């Protein structure tokens, strides 16, 4: 969905002393050289984008600035003054705030309690809360950051949780705000809103550092952009004087196909047939509501929709994680819905790349090779009977890592230590290499760099051209449109309509919003 950049863009007023100066930052993790002599200047009152491939060292650099890691070498200046940042506490005192890729909120607490956390100031919580409430109202007014202070954080949608994170930072007096891939989890509308907030922050003289993989976002709201590759800073550009193509090339070091190239699909026999599928949650609400469609061999069927409209539940039903309340899921002639067993479904020839790689796709405390067999670990090729042949597991991971260019290519590294895009590659390799008849894949490129997106898209189309069926769920409409041969649009648990890939973006957008001429 295109960003509607409706807010007025004030001419940035950069003052002389930069907000942040990073000078010669160097950091190694064992054999991995995550930051190589990186120097960067962030102008006061600007939005500064940082882009780069997965594992380029963006998060590491920002973690150093925020005091999570200690740099091996290098110097940091805040507002011209040399600063020793030994912990996030120091960073906060210097007016630096960070919104992490994965939120650091206490779910059962209210918004207010979360905001105050770590800044209680004194033994009694009462005064702090009263003060925070007043402050929160002011921030909400100034920056369009409306959140109900008494809402329980765990019950808020991600977009709002992110606002709480921003509020938390501002409450602690952040002058410079670091956001690490803030839009990965947001719907296009939420992302729009976030950018409005960031614009306003800048206009009020705050400095924003934005890490993202979406070049469109960079072009839309940043003033400057720095490009990192394999730990090095390769360029810093003024956004108005660069282009998406140039940035992409700087990032990857070669020309990148920003459009997917694919031939016409040659659909074969029906592989998956979903008939009147309904699933009700424990409250009795139909989250998947009488859904019917088919997927044929040799085609990619995309399911578009704003997140939270039943796509996740649909994936869980087809992959056997949950059981349908009614209706059938017929895979190669067999009803797999009644089984409700992911392992059995896999054995029938279905592979599943889950939406949520942190919580489903891999186990962060396992090493990469162990995460690389999740779901397929019972396979006889990994050890006969009850045995698990460690050597086979590691070897399999090693060869998959090589083929999918996972960095670092170390099967013994803990899964949590890979950057987001590389984690996704580990999962994709695991599922694609099992040669499934049907691949169902949720958000395949969430948080993945453009080089890897190109690679992943290529692999999905290759799979299709081998005569396999692919069911793709994504909240990125662009991705759905460029990959799918047919597009189904989901809204409130129902299929609102079917379109082909060439149909008008606006029309699909309307279906996604629940407006439809042809809905049943």
């Amino acid at each position, binding site marked *: 969905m295109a960003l509607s950049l409706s807010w007025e863009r004030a001419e940035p007023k950069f003052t002389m002393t930069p907000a942040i100066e990073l000078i010669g930052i160097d950091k*190694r*993790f*064992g054999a991995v050289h995550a930051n190589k002599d990186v120097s960067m200047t962030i102008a006061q009152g600007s939005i500064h984008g940082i882009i780069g491939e997965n594992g380029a060292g963006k998060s590491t650099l920002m*973690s150093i600035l925020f*005091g*999570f*890691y*200690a740099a*091996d070498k290098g110097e940091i200046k805040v507002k011209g003054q040399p600063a020793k940042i*030994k*912990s996030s506490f120091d960073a906060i005192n210097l007016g630096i705030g960070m919104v992490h890729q994965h939120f650091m909120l206490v779910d059962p607490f209210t918004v207010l309690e979360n905001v105050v956390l770590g800044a209680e100031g004194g033994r009694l919580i009462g005064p702090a809360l009263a003060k925070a409430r007043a402050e929160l109202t002011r921030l909400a007014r100034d920056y369009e950051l409306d959140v109900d202070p008494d809402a329980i954080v765990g019950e808020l949608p991600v977009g709002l949780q992110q606002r709480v994170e921003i509020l938390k930072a501002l409450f602690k007096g952040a002058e410079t705000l670091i956001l690490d891939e803030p839009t990965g989890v947001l719907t296009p509308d939420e992302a729009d809103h976030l950018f409005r907030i960031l614009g306003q922050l800048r206009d009020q003289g705050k400095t924003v550092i934005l890490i993202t993989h979406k070049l469109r976002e960079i072009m839309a709201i940043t003033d400057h952009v720095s490009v990192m590759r394999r730990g090095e800073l390769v360029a810093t550009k003024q956004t108005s004087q660069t282009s998406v193509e140039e940035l992409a090339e700087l990032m990857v070091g070669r020309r990148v196909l920003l459009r997917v190239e694919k031939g016409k699909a040659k659909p074969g026999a029906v592989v998956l047939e979903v008939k009147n599928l309904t699933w009700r949650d424990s409250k009795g609400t139909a989250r998947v509501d009488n859904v019917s469609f088919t997927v044929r061999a040799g085609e990619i069927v995309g399911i578009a929709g704003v997140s939270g409209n039943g796509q996740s539940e649909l994936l869980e039903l087809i*992959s*056997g*994680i949950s059981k349908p309340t009614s209706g059938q899921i017929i895979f190669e002639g067999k009803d797999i819905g009644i089984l409700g*067993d*992911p*392992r*059995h*479904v*896999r054995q029938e020839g279905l592979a*599943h790349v*889950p939406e949520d790689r942190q*919580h*489903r*796709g*891999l*186990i*962060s*405390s*396992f090493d990469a090779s*162990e995460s690389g*067999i*999740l*779901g397929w*670990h*019972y396979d006889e090729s*990994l*050890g006969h009977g*009850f*045995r*698990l042949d*460690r050597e086979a597991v590691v070897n399999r991971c090693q060869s998959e890592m090589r083929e999918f260019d996972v960095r670092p290519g170390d099967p013994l590294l803990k899964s949590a230590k890979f950057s987001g895009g590389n984690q996704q590659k580990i999962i994709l390799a695991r599922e694609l290499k099992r040669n499934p008849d049907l691949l169902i894949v949720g958000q395949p490129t969430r948080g993945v760099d453009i080089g890897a997106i190109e690679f992943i898209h290529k692999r999905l189309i290759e799979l299709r051209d081998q005569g396999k069926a692919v069911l793709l769920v994504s909240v990125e409409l662009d991705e759905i449109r460029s990959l799918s041969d047919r597009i189904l649009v989901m809204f409130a648990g129902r299929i609102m309509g079917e379109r082909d890939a060439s149909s008008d973006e606006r029309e699909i957008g309307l279906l996604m919003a629940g407006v439809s001429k042809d809905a049943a």
Partner: protein
Amino acid sequence: MANARGELPTWVDIGLIPLLNLFIALLVAGLVVLIIGENPLEAMWIMLKGAVGSIKGWGYVLYYATNFIFTGLAVSVAFHAGLFNIGGEGQAYFAGLGAAIVGLSLEFLPWPIVIPLAILASILFGAFWAWIPGYLQAKRGSHIVITTIMFNFIGASLMVYLINNWFRPVGKMAVESREITGAYILSFREIGLQFFGVRLPSTPLNLTVFLAVIAVVFVWYLLWRTKLGYEIRAVGANPEAAIYAGIKPDRIIIIAMAISGGLAGLMAVNEVLGVQHRLLLEFAGGAGFVGIAVALMGRSHPVGIVFAAMLFGLLYQGGAELSFAKPLISRDMIVVIQGLVILFMGALEYAFRPTLAAIFANVED
């Protein structure tokens, strides 16, 4: 090299930190000894000498360690599945029933048949006593910590009743079964005498110690070299991902608890068949609870558990010697010292981590 803040080199994590914790525990214990008017250094020396200064001391240390290895492994297997099995004590106690039934009723059979059967019975009885809480957790959502504690009590009462009414020979005053006269597990003293003609001091150490070694290897193999172990660890680390992978957490919870109980049950082999040669009241003597500390300290890894079990064996044996040599330091004092070790090694395991992490980060700068 220091990685992230709070992340330490492996040798610090598994070497320095436990040692530091132990040192501080001993320091505080020494203070307590000082307060009651004894010389802490002397006390420490007596403990150490009593434990590892003689063959007899070593015999006792290893005998205690055998028990602690079984119960520590039991706790760790459940822990890898994300379960906190507090019921090792009850499971070991109940397993004694299995060992005694086989040992007493099959006395007419030769030992190569009776001993394996008795070991098997111990495992099965222990496993059964853990299986029930496991089942209740998996199917009914009853919290494992609560149920296993309850089963300690149920087991204790049941055993009193059974020993008193079923096993106690008519006319015998002590509440215990009659002696197992057929097959039992030989002690090192007997082996020394019969096969090598050497006279070893009398200690409870018996061949069951080798069973403990086997159990250590078994648990390591199970957890890291079998598909079941993979599934157990997956459920413990991330149940969501496990479900995605087609693993059924309910099933794994029940299996892991049964294995855990079976391991705890092996303790009965040591006590009933190896040492006492009869079933008697409270023979588990708290080893089930020590197992929790041992597993915590050993980081739930079989190798770590061996070291932790040895340490606690040392404390037990050294403590006994100490209370013998210094009447001022009673048995209860020893329990206090052990408690301090548990406190610092287990509960306060991470208390000194931030400080160390800061030190190491500074060294790096």
